């Protein structure tokens, strides 16, 4: 008598996990899929760039060719050039800069540097933000002296938000050697506040949800409740912010490089190619527009994907 609503029919093995549902919704968003496509293509380019400029040097970004300064894109290499210094096909695909370096090779090298800075910096900020936000949300009521853990962490977060981040980065970068790793760490350690804030907010609301109470009633240990029950349900907005955060980190690195505080030569990043190019904007506009356009495209792609993910995760759009 009690088996009526348990529908003994429809025993199809097909099942819809929340991630699969998310993926299906995301696929309907053409702009987001375009962004994803561009990013995948750029990721391939970045990996190939790393391989062909450093491991198996097909495109050498460091060769100086004083006879071939300021060559426009698609122009042929000079006949005076020694064979060892010739570009791969004898053509400068994206022209050369003021030292006759191949811009195509430099862009290839820079793509890996720029993207890895974006991803590592965001990885650091997610790690810091999730840990601090999670502690504040789950153990918030524990007291240390007169203040709660929650107060301590969130007021620190507020303090960090009050500091103009870009100037903080400038100060730190001016004091530390400007290596790629320092820049990754500095950008990562100054961008976690938003993440910690909404991880905390998610945890506060999840902590009172019945399924979390049920997990506690089952006597599950705290780490299991946090990592199996709460974290997966709090990660969706973190992913969205992270996606857009990669774009912001790449922009920040470009801005730092533009001001001369970023990754130092001979390492090429899109930012410092752009910075060098600005001096020759009228004589050799490609030096300026090529890296600028690349930054524009990658930031746009990350933003389109991030927006699409936000939409796909919106519970009002998801059918039950």
């Amino acid at each position, binding site marked *: 008598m*009690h088996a009526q609503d*348990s529908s003994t029919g429809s025993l199809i093995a097909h099942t*819809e996990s929340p991630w699969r549902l998310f993926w299906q919704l995301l696929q309907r968003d053409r702009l987001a899929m375009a962004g994803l496509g561009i990013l995948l293509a750029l990721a391939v380019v970045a990996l190939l760039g790393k391989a062909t400029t450093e491991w198996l040097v097909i495109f050498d970004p460091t060769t100086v060719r004083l006879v071939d300064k300021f060559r426009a894109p698609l122009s042929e290499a000079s006949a005076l050039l020694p064979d060892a210094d010739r570009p791969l096909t004898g053509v400068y695909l994206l022209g050369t800069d003021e030292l006759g370096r191949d811009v195509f090779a430099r862009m290839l090298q820079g793509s890996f540097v720029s993207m890895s800075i974006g991803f590592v910096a965001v990885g650091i900020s997610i790690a810091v933000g999730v840990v601090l936000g999670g502690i504040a949300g789950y153990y918030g009521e524990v007291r240390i002296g007169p203040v709660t853990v929650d107060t301590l962490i969130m007021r620190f977060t507020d303090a960090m938000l009050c500091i103009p981040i870009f100037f903080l980065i400038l100060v730190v970068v001016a004091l530390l050697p400007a290596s790629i790793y320092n820049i990754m760490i500095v950008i990562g350690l100054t961008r976690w506040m938003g993440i910690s804030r909404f991880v905390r907010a998610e945890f506060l609301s999840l902590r009172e949800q*019945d399924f979390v109470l*049920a997990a506690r*009633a*089952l*006597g599950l*240990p705290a780490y299991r409740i946090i990592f199996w*029950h709460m974290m997966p349900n709090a990660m969706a907005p973190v992913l969205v912010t992270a996606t857009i955060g990669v774009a912001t980190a790449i922009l920040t690195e470009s801005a730092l490089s533009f001001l001369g505080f970023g990754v130092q030569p001979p390492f090429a990043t899109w930012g410092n190619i752009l910075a060098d190019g600005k001096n020759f904007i009228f004589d050799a506009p490609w030096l300026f527009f090529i890296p600028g356009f690349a930054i524009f495209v990658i930031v746009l792609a990350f933003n389109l994907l991030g927006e699409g993910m936000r939409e796909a995760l919106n519970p009002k759009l998801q059918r039950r």
Partner: protein
Amino acid sequence: MSTAALLEVRDLAKHFALRRGLLGRPSGWIKAVDGVSFHVREGETLALVGESGCGKTTTGRAVLRLIEPSSGSVTFDGQELLKLNAGDLQRMRRDIQIVFQDPYSSLNPRMTVGNIVGEALRVHGIARGAELNERVAHILERVGLSPDFRHRYAHEFSGGQRQRVGIARALAMAPRFIVCDEAVSALDVSIQAQVINLLKDLQDEYRLAYLFITHDLNVVRHIAQRVAVMYLGRIVETAGTDELFDNPRHPYTRALLAANPLPDPSSPRPRALRGDVPSPLTPPPGCAFHPRCAEALAHCDRQTPTWIQIARRHGVACHLHQNTSRQGDDEIPDG
């Protein structure tokens, strides 16, 4: 039915601090539960009824220590739950489970049904591998779900099916006592009946004891042997189910029963209770019910009524019965 109480709750209280200031000093207290005592025997169902906001749910959660009670005592099978350390409490939790009201928020949306039901068995090392699968399949079957459902996610099911998953999760640890917190209130009436029958079958099969929290008196009549009526954080009347329905003594209980819709259009329109439940932040002095009570006496707004045993299994906290009763037993609010 055995005579020894499986669960014994005495003077349980939960006071929530209101808006802590800078130095953590509360500006007021909400006495959600204020000195509640009851017991539940093995294989028995005690219904806890009352209006929204009277502290039923808080009582249920405080018994499980999902909310830490402010004071009182909860003994389960002779063990004082409120004094257990974290490790012992986790062991004890196998015996005491809870089924929630909302079948949507009570299941983790990112876990399959099999994981939801089997997780505790695996984490506590009770079963693993093929044995775990078998036990999960058996439990799902027992609550009327196909074992094939265990690879599916909760959002693929109807409300009634989800509630069965919630019951299966509670059953997995083979508990002896289950708090059903409005467990059928969110379901359609036809599904309600199925789930109630399921709960009764499970009770017979495993000798389960239920604390059945509800506001629906029609449900109470079907499932409970005894009823405790709560008003503003206190129990005002307890009696056997039939006794309570036939011979309610507290004016609040009478009003509740009168307001209960009966499937008979010719019955007289119920008398509505006057006013709203007062704020538990500033409960009325004396008997908390006196501002709404049609039969209030002169001293009802000054003296808090004491507990009076009217009959062996019928107790009430009301000044109207102060003189008509046998000697009151202040301690045990039922026989």
